[in-house]
Every structure is written in C-alpha cells, then in structure tokens.
C-alpha cells in the first residue's frame, strides 16, 4: 500500500527525474524528434530538396521500396557489414582492453597506437586506405604476395570491396570499443581478481567468469552502440568507393544520402530513414531481450 508520505516521496522523486531529463529533452525535441516527425510527414509526400512545393503521395514511397533493387542490395550490404564488423571489432577490443588494463610497460603507447585510428579524419583515413588497398603496388597486396597468396584488386573488385571496407572498419573501431571497455575494467574492484587468483583460477576462466560478467553492462552498451554505429557507416564509402563497383559497397546510410542530397528526393530519403529506424529499433529490442536480461549490475 502506498501511504501518504511514501506517495509524496515517490511523486517528488518523479518530479526530480523529469527535471533532470528536461535539459536533454529540450534539445532532443528540437534537433532529433522534430526532424523525425518531419521525416515521417515527408515520407508520405513528394518533396524535392530546394523546392517548397509538396505533393501528397500516400504510401507510394513505401511501395517503391518493394521494387527498388538497390534498396534491398544496400540493406543486404549493411547487414553483412554489421554481422562481420561488430563481432570482430568487439572481440579484438575486449582482448586489447583486458591486455592493456594493467601496468604494462609502454601502456600509454599501446593504448594510443590502438586508439588513434578513431582520431584520423575520415577523408584522410579513407585516402590512406585507398593507397593501402591499391592493386599490385599497394602494401597490403605486397604482404599478401609475400605470404604466397594471390593478389586481390580489393576496391576495384565487386567481391572484395565490401570486405576491404569491413577490414578497415575493424582497424578503425577496435580501439574505440577498447577505450569504452577499458573504462569499464577500470571500475572493477581489484580485490575480486586477487581473490580468484589466490584460489588458483586460470586467466582464461577469470576472463570468462569474472571479467566479462562484471563488465557486462558495458559490453551490452558496446554491442548496441556498435550495431547503431555500423548503420551510420557512410564517410568511408563516400570517400573510397562512392558505393561502387556495381553497388557492391552501397550501404543504407549512403543510399539515404544519395537520395536526399544528390537526387533531391527528400520524400524517398525520409522513407528510407524511417524504415532504417524501424529496422534498427527492432534489432535493438531483440538484443535487449536476448542480452539485456543477462547483464549483471553491481547496483540495484
């Protein structure tokens, strides 16, 4: 039973909560929700960038999706990109974070070396990788040849262009996830590990049974953020391949950009953005259902 004072306490707690959320909500409403609402409105209309004439279309933009081969291709590319990049990058990141969560000599240098790719502006990083992937004379091909494997045309080859971008993304994002995981590891009480070690638990068992559960809230965060980020992959595609060859690297966000800014087709671009939002929302809900329950919080 909620009694008078308890009820009052609960109401004041809720009031405080809304007050704390208010600053964020003001800005989110202006710069996120308003664009989303407009995007929903646009998706039912024919809207041309640069013109203020708008025509009602009903569901025509959504119907277009079914027959738009490029939409399905870019969706497929995006899913493939995500399913490979995120597990790889997070695994590498976790191992790096565990290794670098210690007083290793040269630790600052190691951490910087793995994190710096995040800092390189995408136009510059994209250019560098265009060179690294160069056919024949590029360093990656030289390395492959040294291992006795056949050279690959990478960005010029529709089969290899997307894997090339995935590989580069792992280079780019592993350090990013590493940093977040490192922060989580730093917050684990050290005595837990000490105790386990004294009990003779092996390093791998400690990783699986102590470290991973203890940082599971952050791991959960990283997986979700990874999924979301991978849908934003755009800059590299734009700089390196422009979606080609033969649309092999066209991903959804690039396709949205193309439709909205190049083709001026704001209505269709909004439709694509909304579909992406629904899709990602569904995916995140799924992740939340599967992983969310297994997350252990030290707090309540």
């Amino acid at each position, binding site marked *: 039973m909620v009694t008078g004072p308890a009820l009052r306490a609960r109401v004041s707690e809720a009031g405080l909560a809304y007050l704390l959320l208010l600053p964020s909500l003001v800005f989110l409403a202006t710069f996120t929700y308003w664009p989303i609402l407009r995007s929903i409105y646009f998706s039912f209309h*024919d809207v041309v960038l640069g013109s203020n004439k708008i025509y009602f279309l009903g569901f025509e933009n959504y119907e277009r999706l079914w027959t738009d081969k490029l939409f399905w291709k870019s969706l497929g590319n995006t899913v493939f990109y995500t399913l490979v990049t995120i597990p790889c990058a997070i695994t590498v990141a976790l191992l790096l974070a565990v290794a670098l969560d210690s007083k290793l000599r040269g630790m600052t240098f190691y951490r910087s070396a793995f994190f710096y790719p995040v800092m390189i502006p995408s136009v510059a990083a994209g*250019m560098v990788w265009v060179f690294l992937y160069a056919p024949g004379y590029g360093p990656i091909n030289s390395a492959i040849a040294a291992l006795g494997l056949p*050279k690959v045309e990478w960005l010029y080859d*529709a089969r290899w262009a997307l894997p090339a971008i995935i590989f580069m993304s792992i280079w780019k994002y592993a350090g990013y996830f590493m940093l977040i995981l490192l922060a989580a590891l730093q917050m684990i009480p050290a005595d837990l590990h000490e105790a386990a070690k004294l009990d003779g638990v092996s390093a791998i068992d400690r990783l699986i049974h102590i470290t991973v559960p203890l940082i599971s809230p952050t791991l959960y965060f990283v997986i979700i953020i990874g999924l979301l980020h991978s849908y934003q992959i755009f800059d590299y595609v734009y700089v390196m391949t422009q979606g080609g060859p*033969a649309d092999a690297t066209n991903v959804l966000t690039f396709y949205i950009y*193309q439709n909205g800014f190049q*083709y*001026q087709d704001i209505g269709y671009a909004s439709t694509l953005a909304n579909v992406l939002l629904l899709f990602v929302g569904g995916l995140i809900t799924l992740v939340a259902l599967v992983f969310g329950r297994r997350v252990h919080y030290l707090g309540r």
Partner: protein
Amino acid sequence: MSVKSTISHISRRGVLLGGAAAVAASAGLRSRPAYAAPDKVKVQFMYPVGVSGDINKLVSTMISKFNAAHEKIEVEAIYAGSYDNTEQKVITALGVGDPPATWLPINSALQTFLGLDALADVTDKAKKTDIYQDFIPGFLETAVSDGKLYGLPFQPSTPVLYFNADAFKAAGIAKPPVTWDELLEVSKALTVRENGELKRWGLTIGGGWHDWIFECFCRQNALVPWTKDKVLFDKPEAVDALEFWVKLVKAGVMPPASTWQGSANDFMAGRTAMLYHSTGSLTNLRTSSPFKVDVAFMPKNKTFGACQGGGPIMIAKKQSDAAIEASWTFAKWMTSTDVQSQWGRDTGYLAVRKSSWETPEMLAYLKEVPQAKVALEQSAYAGAFLQVPGYHKVREYLKSALDRTLAGEIKPDAALKEAADNSNREIQRLLRRRS
C-alpha cells in the same frame, strides 16, 4: 548543489572555464554578413574545390582584386566543398529562399537548377557584350538551355588521354593512338604480365566518373546520348561503345573497374600506361609522376568527341535587379580575358575565351606546357555532359550498368537498355512533377 558545481567537479576547472568561454565567445563570434555601407551591393559566391588546395587562395586573391576595382560591389567567396557539396549547400539554401547570389556548380546541374526555377536568364545581358563572339562555343553551350543563357562558363574541363611517355618509348611506340583500333593495339603492346601476373595495364578508364568518359565514347560514335528530357543509352552507337570497352577488358589490357582517386594513383605508380582522366588533373599528374607525362586527344571512332566537366558561374533569379546586375558584373569580370588566362595557367582549367589563349602570358605558358593545348583543341569536339533532370540518379543507373557489364554479369545491350529505361522513367517522374 547546483548544476554548475557538478560540472566543475567532473571536469577540471580549466576545462570548465574553457567551455564557458567557448559558449560566450561563440555567441560573440556570430558572424552574419556584415552589412556594408547602404550603397554597396553584397554578393555571395559559393565555389567548390576543383583542382587543388590552393584554389582557396587563388579565389580569395581574385575576389580581393575584384572588390578593390568595384566600389559599389562587395563579393564574399564561400568555399563549399566538392562539386556535390556545393550543389547541396546551394540547393539547401534555395529551399529556405535564401540562395547565394552566385555559385559555381558542375554544368550537368543546369537542368536541376532550372527545375527549381533558380537561375537568372542572362541572354540579353550577354548579347550586349562580346560574350557570344569571344567565348569558345563548346564551352558556352554548356550554360545554354532552349536557346537561353543561364550563366558564364568559368572552369571547363574534359577527359583526355594521359600517357606515360617513358613507357611508350620503352615499348617502341612513336605516337599516341588516334583511333579506337589503335587504342586497342597500343594497349596490348603496353600491357605487361610476368608469369601470368599483371604488372601493368595498357589502359585504365578513371572509375567513379567513367559514365562521363563513356559519354565521350558515345560522342566518338557520333551520338549525343541524351536530349534535355530523355537519355539514349540504348541506341546502337552507345551499345557499340560499351562493346568496345568489353573488348578491352576481355583482351586483358584494361581493368574492369577502378576509382577516380585510385586510377590517378595507379597511373603515377606506373600500374597503368595510359589513363582517361580529367584535364583538371594535368598539373597534379604532371608534377607528381616520376616519369614524363604526355597528353593526347581521346582517340576517335567515327569522329573525335568529348564532353565538358567543370562548370559555369550561375546567378540566382530571386534577388533584386541591383543584386542581379552586381552578380552579372562579377561573373563577367571572372570570365574576362586576363582573369581567365591567369586562372587557366594557375589551375590547369581551360580558359573560356578565345582571347585568353592569345595573351602573351598564355602563349609563353603553352610553350612550357604544350600538353595544355591538347584539351583546348579537343574541346572543338566537346559538348555539355548529361544535362537532364535528375542527372545524379541517371549517372548512378549508367555507372551501375557499365560496372556490371564489365564484370561480365550482363550483356552490353541489356545493361544499357535497363539503364535507359530506369533513367527515362526517373526523368519523366521529375518532369511530371515540375508541371
């Protein structure tokens, strides 16, 4: 406990002060266009970086010269990124009814801007000057629609055939190919394989803009593959051009795909002996290659043919007469004989006026860099590039068709038919919407 103190705790005080200063300073730094004396007309000019980083400096120098010479006009130059970025920035500003007075898009965007009813018609103004007489006709045409002039060409370019002169010498080839057949033969002779592994391609067609170069091949087959309301990619001349590309790929002398950036690198690294790329790249390729770079006409088939990249200075329609007049004065000055002669020499773009090519400075430059002349001569055969509504999407359809054909996934005629159908459907949609 106040919000402020929370922050000073989590971040160091210095950061707090810095941040507070940032917010305060940024409010003060708000730099709206400073309204000059009331009798001065303010003109904004948005331009892309076409050929090199120094463009920012070159343009600012030109602008300050212009401003110094014109008491009543003040031009503000705004760098707006790549051609794409510039177009997007202008169109976004158009959407809120606040476009810049002048801007410099790629010429293919002509129909796009006309579709937005954004361009001032300058035909009558131009007729009062020597523009129709002195501009090189192939360049002027890129700013003309239905007989009306919508801007002044400022920095035209065309694709040309670059070749590695050292490689030619080593292979005993005396002169660049003039016909498609010779192109195939020379490419074969220049392709190098060791133990079955490719060391050097004979020829590379710069990817990313290969649709632009493909239009040149169509024009060399005496076909302009578009009119202002439809594309003609499915005509036999176009299919024949693509079949020739397939032949080059099947002969193993040309890679089936490349990127714009990558192909220029490949040429500089000696990975390809010949390269189709923009004249705008001349300075970069010439000064960055460790061998002698030479330039030739794109080989002909039925005829020589090329199409224009680069763009005209366009003037916004919805502004006061005084502003249009000031914009016109600016555009005219930017395309005047001496300014164009200087601009062409500084950047490698083609000067738009016949008289610019006859200035003493230009003649001296041509002696030093005779390659620059090739593109000029070729431009006698050049026309505008794909000036159809929705050209971006049409380009994507065409590029996709070319890529898939060269990768062997689809036959040339089927691919081009599909691209033409898709493009024409899109163009029709846009035209219907416009009316």
